[in-house]
């Protein structure tokens, strides 16, 4: 049999039918829903008089719009001050009730960011196809699943048919060899990768992350990396299944049990690329050469090591790139040649589907413990990814470390990653953020986002500007 990549195997095992024109019908095992991209899909079902094909594959939770202060959350949906946000959260509840879909509501401890909740519950498993109306669905590829974001029409399509009409992507391998230095995290790895391949470098590809760095990376770290595959243009990011994956999945509420578990584990042994599998494109990085990363511009590819200086557009040979850099520097209020460590910060955000899991919070807490947030900062937020992450962090006393240091400890949700709720940047404010996008206006109108790891964000909160966490105390 011809050797296959992990992506080939996942694709082949979900192919329902290939049409003569090359378009394929792909079966979907898990469909995750949230309040922003689903209402129009449910409305479409109602108008057409259609029912969901397989209700048990759907799992919903509100995350984008939910408030994150304990006061607002204590009274349920009535605590959502913004009436338009409230309608979306209420509508998700109504739709799930009408169609019989399991929903973790705002006050359920299992509620959280959909990409944190799925793996945490064992609702996303190795070998599955996982989709959600959210581009960061690639997160679940860390489980050795085929996971990607879809639009609302496709949300409706999956609800109605359990399938998607797809064209196969090409295979890309991003291999990171060697070992990461101390203080260098999965977030730095993925930012460094995007810096190399660019924000459109993965367009049309499914990326598999491989090599020693990923073999020794935790599941949560793998999720951080796969999460940002879309920031390199790839809808799909994934890591092959190994013992780390299986240990992570075992015993979770939705994971198979007993005999089913043994069957599943046996089947999952094959969920990796064959040794001689061919990729259409291979990128290799040296893990030991990766330093903590900071984005300086308005695209995730505008990224540099923390010790670098803001680049000079006049030295860029490509005209289109140079004009993009000039525009970015103007928006960001930065000067060419300025040291990254001289960028003064107004706010710090630790959270998002990229970096709000327990390991992220532990890393941030370890940095801030015994320190105080810089007086020049207006706000430093820590927003756990789910109610269960929050409970775990509190059991470990992390919340006390954060609040003693002057950071705010919040309720779970997407929060300042995209600022659909009240957590946002003011115009012109610089933010060290553990989220995934530094686009213009993403975290608030006129806001200036710098993407970093949780440890780097924590160190920046204490210093008031960027510092190299490797030499921070």
């Amino acid at each position, binding site marked *: 049999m011809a050797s296959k990549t992990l992506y080939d195997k996942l694709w082949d*095992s979900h192919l*329902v*039918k290939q049409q003569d*024109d*090359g378009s394929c*019908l792909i*079966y979907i095992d898990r469909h995750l829903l949230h309040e*922003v991209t689903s209402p*129009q899909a449910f*409305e479409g079902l109602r108008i*057409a008089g*259609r029912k969901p*094909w397989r209700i048990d594959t759907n799992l919903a939770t509100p995350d*984008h*719009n939910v408030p994150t202060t304990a006061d607002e959350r204590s009274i349920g949906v009535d605590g959502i001050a*913004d009436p*338009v946000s409230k309608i*979306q959260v209420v509508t998700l509840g109504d739709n799930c009730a009408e169609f019989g879909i399991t929903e973790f509501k705002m006050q359920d401890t299992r509620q959280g960011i959909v990409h944190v909740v799925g793996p945490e519950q064992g609702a996303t*498993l190795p*070998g599955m196809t996982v989709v959600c*109306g959210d*581009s960061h669905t690639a997160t679940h590829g860390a489980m050795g699943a085929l996971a990607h*974001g*879809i*639009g*609302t*029409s*496709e949300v*409706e*399509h999956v609800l*109605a*048919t*359990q*399938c998607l*009409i797809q064209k196969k*992507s090409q295979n890309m391998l991003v291999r990171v060899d060697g070992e990461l230095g101390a203080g260098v995290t999965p977030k730095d790895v993925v930012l460094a990768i995007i810096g190399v391949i660019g*924000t*459109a470098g993965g*367009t049309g590809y499914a990326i598999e992350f491989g090599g020693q760095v990923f073999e020794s990376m935790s599941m949560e770290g793998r999720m951080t990396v796969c999460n940002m595959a*879309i920031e390199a*243009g*790839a*809808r799909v990011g994934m890591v092959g299944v190994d013992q780390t994956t299986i240990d992570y999945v075992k015993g979770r509420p939705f994971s*198979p049990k007993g005999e*089913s578990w043994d*069957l*599943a584990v046996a089947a999952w042994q094959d969920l990796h690329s064959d040794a001689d599998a061919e990729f259409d494109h291979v990128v290799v990085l040296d893990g030991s050469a990766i330093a903590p990363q900071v984005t300086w511009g308005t695209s995730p590819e505008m990224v540099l090591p923390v010790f670098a200086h803001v680049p000079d557009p006049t030295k860029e040979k490509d005209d289109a790139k140079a004009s*993009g850099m000039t*525009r970015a520097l103007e928006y960001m209020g930065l000067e060419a040649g300025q040291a990254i460590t001289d960028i003064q910060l107004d706010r710090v955000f630790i959270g998002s589907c990229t970096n709000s899991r327990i390991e992220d919070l532990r890393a941030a807490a370890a940095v801030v413990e015994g320190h105080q947030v810089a007086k020049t900062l207006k706000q430093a937020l820590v927003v756990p990814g789910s109610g269960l992450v929050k409970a775990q962090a509190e059991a470990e006393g992390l919340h006390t470390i954060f609040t003693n240091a002057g950071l705010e400890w919040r309720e779970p949700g997407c929060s300042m990653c*995209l*600022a*659909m709720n009240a957590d946002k940047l003011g*115009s012109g404010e610089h933010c060290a953020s553990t989220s995934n*996008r530094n*686009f*213009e*206006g*993403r975290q608030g*109108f*006129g806001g200036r986002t710098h993407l970093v790891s949780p440890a780097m964000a924590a160190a920046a909160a204490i210093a008031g500007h960027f510092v190299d966490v490797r030499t921070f105390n």
Partner: protein
Amino acid sequence: MQAFTQLTGITAPLDRANVDTDMIIPKQFLKSIKRSGFGPNLFDELRYLDEGQPDQDSSQRPINPDFVLNLPRYKGAKILLARDNFGCGSSREHAPWALLDYGFSCVIAPSFADIFYNNCFKNGILPITLLNEQVDQLFIDSQAEEGFELTVDLEASVIRGSSAGEIAFSIDSFRRHCLLNGLDDIGLTLEQADNIKRYEQKRQQQAPWLFAK
């Protein structure tokens, strides 16, 4: 879905690479539970000088006179010319909804982000990928002549009206068929219901844990 066969219209050049879907329609407008009404907030942060809010009367807001869509010559444009990696970022289908609601049903660029590209077809918008040189030429054409119009003929898969003559483009045959006929994907897939059920039966034997209630 509205069928797309042929379109003639003013062509507006948006000279900027990596236009993301946050830029096409900012997050505060995603709170709607409808598919329509996003047009006034298309490119909101580029188009207006203030911060837009949902349910606001946008006709009263200060506009950015330098933004291409605010130039009188591009009023009523139906075709958007763009640069590389158009539509990157968030999967929000509100981006094509906003383009359509504004009046754009065709976007021409050297490259598109995958999810956005896919979302266009679900809404009767035709995204056309051309070579960089061809896009450059169309930028020159649309900037040189006031009221410059292109005709996009999907049936023949050509663009007419450029000073460089007819430009052929290619498009996936299934997507072309659906656009030309305004076909609903879901209806087409449901014609495959027997195949889907057959797949489920086979899959349930191989991977029963995926079917546990």
